[in-house]
């Protein structure tokens, strides 16, 4: 699935050129006649809110295309323009094929009606003829695994069931292009997997899928290409992992990359050792600063001795953006023989299993003397930083090894 963007030029499915969208926001909401009457003399003031500032991109036919961005970056506006919900102020969108007219699951479901009427009604909303919609009812219900609940009114469905029905319907309408806005985070894990499988199948069938999401793992694993929107402009386009990394950077404002490590002076020992470099790599040996959850982080720290050092050790600290210490391994001996001479340079390679939650992390390094409780002689704060992305579905700071299974209930408990 993790396909590197294909170099071959394919047919363009969506062509966006110079797309501008702005909203006129009255500085004072004027909704009643009296307000209008009293405001007649004073000109009404509008604030022009630029949601999209002239963006260009192409989506190729059959592509799994990601649109990511922070809240207010314009990504939903873009999706609504693609779905013909908004009208662009300037620029144009050209589309090859039929675009599913819906950006959210279950829009237009009527809670008072049972599944059948809703599937037919919604199918027609999505562009099927009533006959097609009726004939696909079985498929929709089967895929959604709602066979036992077809008689139930939708208001009695659980939210997960609604999502399943909505999603199932969406995969059954004959659109060439699917627009998806953050639906993957809903439903249980099995259904999420089914959704992804269905998208993958649609994708393989040659459908073009446009996904707006916050979930960088999905972007990185499923999308062929992605764009990152910020402030109504495309700030990054192309490789989804790079886009995912940029996105995570944007989410930690104030940290401009690459971080400059800060050498913290330690009284009396400022010239005994120097931390030359700290670099992070992925398991393939490529220098990297973004890691998927669970992907090990390989780090290399280079230290130069400027004086004779006895029992030098390297201390490492990994802290999150708030400064909370996530992990510090025991001090690692730097010298094979126990001492380092002035001018000696040593490099230590470490491998860190990565159970960390998504976020921005900072690696600080220190050199100390003595094996028991080392006396610090050099310390570089934030010598390197990295971003962990993905949602493995756990909450908390780190992912602990966890399994669960269903066990039989004993008779006593039942009684």
């Amino acid at each position, binding site marked *: 699935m993790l396909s590197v963007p294909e170099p071959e030029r394919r047919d363009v499915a969506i062509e966006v050129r110079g797309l501008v969208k702005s909203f006129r926001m009255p500085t004072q909401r004027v*909704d009643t006649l009296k307000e209008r009457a009293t405001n007649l003399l004073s000109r009404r003031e509008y604030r022009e809110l630029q949601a999209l500032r002239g963006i260009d991109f192409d989506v190729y036919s059959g592509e799994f295309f990601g649109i990511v961005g922070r809240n207010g970056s314009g990504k939903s506006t873009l999706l609504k323009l693609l779905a013909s919900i908004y009208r662009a102020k300037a620029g144009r969108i050209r589309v090859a094929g039929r675009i599913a007219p*819906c950006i959210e699951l279950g829009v237009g479901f009527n809670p008072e009606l049972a599944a059948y009427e809703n599937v037919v009604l919604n199918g027609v909303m999505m562009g099927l003829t009533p006959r097609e919609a009726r004939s696909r009812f079985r498929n929709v219900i089967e895929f959604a695994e709602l066979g036992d609940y077809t008689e139930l009114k939708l208001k009695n469905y659980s939210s997960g069931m609604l999502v399943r029905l909505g999603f199932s319907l969406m995969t059954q309408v004959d659109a060439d292009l699917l627009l998806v806005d953050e639906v993957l985070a809903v439903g249980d894990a099995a259904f999420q997997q089914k959704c992804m499988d269905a998208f993958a199948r649609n994708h393989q069938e040659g459908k073009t899928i446009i996904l707006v999401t916050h979930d960088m793992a999905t972007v990185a694993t499923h999308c062929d290409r992605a764009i990152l929107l910020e402030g109504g402009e495309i700030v990054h386009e192309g490789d989804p992992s790079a886009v995912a990394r940029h996105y995570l950077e944007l989410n930690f404002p104030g940290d401009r990359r690459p971080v400059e490590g800060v050498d913290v002076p330690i009284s009396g020992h400022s010239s005994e050792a120097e931390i030359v470099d700290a670099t992070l790599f992925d398991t393939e040996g490529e220098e990297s600063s973004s890691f998927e959850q669970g992907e090990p982080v390989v780090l290399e720290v280079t230290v130069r001795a400027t004086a004779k050092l006895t029992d030098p050790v390297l201390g490492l600290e990994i802290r999150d953006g708030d400064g909370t210490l996530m992990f510090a391994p025991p001090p690692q001996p730097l010298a094979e023989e126990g001492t380092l001479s002035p001018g000696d340079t040593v490099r230590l390679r470490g491998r860190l299993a990565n159970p960390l939650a998504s976020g921005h992390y900072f690696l600080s390094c220190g050199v100390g003397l003595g094996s028991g409780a080392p006396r610090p002689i050099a310390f570089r704060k934030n010598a390197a930083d990295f971003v962990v992305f993905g949602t493995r579905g756990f909450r908390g700071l780190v992912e602990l090894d966890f399994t669960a299974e269903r066990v039989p209930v004993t008779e006593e408990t039942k009684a």
Partner: protein
Amino acid sequence: MSATERRPALEEIRGPSAIGGGARRFLDLLRLTSVTEFKLGYHGTVLGFLWSFARPLLLFAILLLVFTQVFRLGSSVDNYAPMLLLNILLFQFFSQATEQALSSVVRSESVVRKMQFPRLVIPLSVVTTNLLHLAFSLIVVFAFILAYGVTPQWTWVLFPLALFALIALTTAVSMLLSVIYVRVRDIGIIWAVGSTALFYACPILYPINFPGAPQQFKDLIMLNPLTPIFVQIREWIFDPNAPGAVESTSGRPWLLLIPIAISIAICVAAPIVFSREAPRVAEEL
């Protein structure tokens, strides 16, 4: 449809509109939503669909009691009771359709904001739903008219003309209100009062030639675009000797041009205003 082509060409999309998404889908949606709404109207009731017939019957009983026993207004007018019933049902169609349509676009917010949904379907389906209710009521009413002893005349075949005029006006007003309401919420209150005013300024409860009514009042009533419709229905259905629309102008037939001009203006303005506003409703909501 071009969707079945193997390699569709790039086509510019023009954003939301009144009809957007093709005429076929528009009509399918209109039909399905109207029928669904109609069914839901009697949802959960014991009599269900039978209410379509029972409701006008009950209404008729009340009207008959009030206006022939209490006010005794009906004694001077031929076939007063069935006329009253028909008039009231026709006006109810107009007032309920327009009042429901008024807020319909706003109520359909989720569909408008999250889907490329042809906007015009929303107010139109309100009108067609009410039209379905009216259609069933009319069956009862005409059964009544016959049972009451009104003799059928050839002019009965003209009734659909009057009905068509009423439907056209109702549709146009509904379209206008639904889209204006998105921007100016005041129209909701204005219309609630306005439709009541229209009710009394229209020969529904009383005949146009009601004895003793001042001439100014009659002239005022003639301005109401609904008046010619109701006057004409009375002449065509109930009493060939009753004044028609032209006779009701008290010898000034040009007076009739005013309600006609108003009706035409509304019917012309409605599609223009609606299609101008339709692309923007998703943002204004």
